[in-house]
């Protein structure tokens, strides 16, 4: 919205609006994927609890299911970082009238990245020191930094 309203004063505004649209479309698809893979993971975990005996193939399948369940929130965390970076750009270069809206968008995106990173960590297949967790936390940090660039001057 900030970029769309800044078209008269900012030549790159349309390009930023197009990226925001692409990020929004991706977020919808990823949220649906996340829901589906998490349901799969829950079903696989429930199945593993019923069958007490250890089975290598079943364990491998469970591991793969959990891996998919961690991959979706990881992508969402990265998307949150992108959304926050884009909002920061719009807030800094776009029409000043809408800077507070850009700040709000960046804060929401940072919140989304944080929530997604938490889901990556909560996933049973992710252990401390896991590279996926490090990536998710890096995205969370990047989103926070981008949001802070806009929010700090307002304090």
């Amino acid at each position, binding site marked *: 919205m900030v970029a769309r309203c800044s078209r008269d004063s900012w030549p790159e505004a*349309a*390009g930023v609006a*197009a990226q925001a649209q*692409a990020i929004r479309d991706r977020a919808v698809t990823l949220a649906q994927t996340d829901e589906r893979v998490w349901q799969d993971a829950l079903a696989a975990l429930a199945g593993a609890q019923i069958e007490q005996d250890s089975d290598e193939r079943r364990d491998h399948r469970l591991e793969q299911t959990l891996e998919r369940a961690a991959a979706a929130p990881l992508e969402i965390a990265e998307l949150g*970082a992108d959304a926050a970076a884009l909002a920061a*750009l719009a807030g800094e270069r776009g029409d000043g009238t809408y800077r507070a809206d850009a700040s709000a968008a960046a804060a929401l995106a940072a919140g989304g990245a944080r929530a997604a990173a938490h889901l990556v960590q909560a996933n049973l297949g992710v252990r401390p020191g896991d590279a996926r967790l490090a990536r998710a936390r*890096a*995205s969370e940090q990047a989103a926070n930094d981008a949001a802070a660039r806009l929010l700090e001057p307002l304090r």
Partner: protein
Amino acid sequence: MSRLSTLSDAELVQRCRAGSSDAWNELVERYSRYVYAICIKGFRLSDEDAEDVFQDVFTRAFLRLETLRDDSALRPWLAQLTRRRCLDHVSSSGREQPVDETLAGEGSPDLQEVEEAFAVRQAVAGLSDACQDILDRFFAQDQSYRTISAELDIPSGTIASRIARCLHKLRIELED
């Protein structure tokens, strides 16, 4: 990018007429997606049927290139050839719900979308390699700024701005 890919349609047609097989290959490469998209999107042909029409269209185009009156009108000429072949294919296959010619005609929304996509593709081809690459990564491959930054070795904080600038150039290309 090959040397031939920078030629205009009219120049390409002239070289094809002169017997250049490289020019013919470039013509097929340039318009293969376009012809295929009309078959699939405009006429809902199966992959197999689209492949038949595709072969037929380019065979006819090759044989009838002499009849093209305006060399710069290659695209509409190919579109017309493709539409006719698609309609022939639909009627000869006895499909229960034949495509209404007015629906799949020049002004149909599906074909307009194909035209638009093709125009964008051509405009993208007119951008620098760096712009083509970054737009492809973000919009076609769904890569994040972080991934683009790591793979192209450019600062992450400049990616969104670079993409926006490339899109601005793309708009100018499209308006030309």
